[in-house]
């Protein structure tokens, strides 16, 4: 464990769906610290709460109890607008199904977080162009997501997650929908970028191989998070 200050922390996080007898306790006191440059894998069976953990840590869902801290600050004690800004500045997401916007080109998709932050379109497109080069799909920038392969889409999604140079990238089964060859490319890329950019990566995955390549493995089993 690093001596550096964690860029993202979860403290005794509980998360429940529903009420009364139908209450589903998804997270039961999960705690986690993510450090710059640290690669952490979370494994667990389907329905164990991996996505929910990432959503809570990514400020997309409010924990039922416990706290999420970004740079030591609790985002849930501020306004929704400021929380959105924190998400934009500090967090990047990679989803299993890429979630690129179909109506925008790959280049525009990658530039989107920068445009959301208030940067001009041309400035955002410049940043996105560099990232497309970095993930090796520069030539596909003017294509729409439906016109490129699954592996290329996921590389574009990775580039998009890195656009604002966030402290933390949360990847929810990023290779879960890819064939073996594309999985290898995306995994290598992700690990290389994490190391070269000194960003914290938290990767939810079913892939033991990917988990072993990460520096740290956590197991989420029936809502309880423990070291693997």
């Amino acid at each position: 464990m690093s001596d550096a200050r964690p860029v993202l922390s979860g403290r005794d996080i509980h998360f429940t769906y529903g009420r009364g007898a139908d209450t589903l306790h998804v997270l039961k006191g999960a705690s986690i610290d993510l450090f710059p440059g640290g690669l952490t894998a979370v494994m667990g069976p389907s329905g164990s709460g991996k996505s929910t953990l990432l959503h809570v840590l990514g400020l997309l869902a409010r924990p039922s109890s416990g706290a999420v801290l970004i740079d030591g600050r609790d985002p849930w004690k501020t306004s929704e607008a400021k929380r959105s800004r924190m998400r934009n500045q500090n967090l990047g997401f990679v989803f299993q199904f890429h979630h690129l916007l179909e109506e925008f080109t790959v280049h525009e998709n990658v530039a989107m977080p920068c445009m959301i932050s208030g940067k001009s379109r041309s400035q955002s497109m410049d940043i996105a162009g560099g990232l497309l080069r970095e993930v090796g799909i520069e030539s596909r920038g003017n294509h729409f997501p439906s016109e490129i392969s699954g592996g290329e889409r996921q590389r574009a999604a990775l580039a998009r997650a890195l656009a604002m140079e966030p402290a933390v990238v949360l990847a929810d089964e990023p290779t879960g929908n890819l064939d073996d060859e594309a999985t290898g490319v995306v995994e290598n890329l992700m690990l290389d970028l994490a190391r070269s950019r000194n960003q914290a990566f938290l990767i939810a995955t079913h892939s033991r191989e990917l988990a072993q390549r990460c520096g740290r493995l956590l197991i989420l089993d029936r809502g309880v998070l423990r070291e693997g």
Partner: protein
Amino acid sequence: MNLWLVGALSVRQVVSRSHSGFVRFVGVLSVVGIAIGVAALIILRSFMDGFTGAIRHSLEAVNPAVHVYAPGGGALGPSDYGLVRELALGIPGTTGVEAVLERPAVASGAVGTVAGVMVRGMSGSGDGAVLGIRLAQSLGVTMGDTVRLASTAGVSVSGMGRVLVDTIMPMVVVRVTDFGIDEYNRSLVTTSIESARSLFGDETGISSMGVGLTAETDPVNASITLDSLLRESYVEGGWPAYMTAIPFMSFHTNLFQALGLESLAMTIVLGLITVVALLNLSSALTMIALEHRWDMGVLRAMGATPRMVFVTSITRGLSIGAVGVVIGALAAWASVLVVNNYFPIRLDGSVYWVESLAGKFSAETALVASAITLLVCLLVSVAPAVSALSDSPSEALRYE
């Protein structure tokens, strides 16, 4: 907020090829509904304005813009004419002042037909009679023929039951004209004021005075100015006020108020129908929002604020509305143009005063109708936008 992004998100999501057939159908239906509503509103106003304008134009073509008369029916004389002329010519936009003597008479033509007419003698007119086309037809006369005019003031019935007339005056028809208004075409005879005075046996008689104005001069303002000048001159001269100046249109206040009321009522009814069509927009926006629920979740994950999501949703509604409004306004413009040029509307002049109806497309009307429609689009878009906001990003991302 990056406006390019908001605009691109709104427009591209509206025209997205990924929409299901039904959502596309509802979207197209919204655009068509808005277009028809806007077109109907503009076409209605164009033809109502055209009708009102045609009547106004026809009336103004025959009558001076401002009338000066003695409300109590008092006789006016040459000195009154002199005073009015002096004052009126000092008002910018005045083109001239005419003394008018207008009285009822009886006219008979070549074939012995007789018609009740209104003889209007004007100081600016030449000798001879100018007849409305329908009157000329009913009297069986044409240019160069002679009509006989008799003043009804001197008519009496003898003991034998014969109708005796003091003055019968033959007058050459110098022109047969279309006065533009059926009532005038059937009964008006214009001539010089001297001829009218001879006919009515009144050597100096003036029943009113007409002040002509340039087309750019507002008759209402000019009449107010002239009226106040007349009053001032009475005060200075120590006379009681007895002449008043009014715009000619005041003689037809009821008509124009009725036309205005009818136009307003029809606009309100059509406007309400358009609002009903706009409610369909709300359904379309809700469906589009549902189909892009994922996208909104992704945008929120990337840091889009609720405000940006809200503005994007509203802009979506406005972009659909804008397309409908532009199509509707263009369709209205084209319809008015086609009807005016290829399918002119004929009216029964005896019922509607004018014999043809031309639409008068006004950019101002189109802008107002478009602006109001877009405002309603904006209001209708609020509910789907608020609904989009109520989704947590996590729920939106899990939505399939």
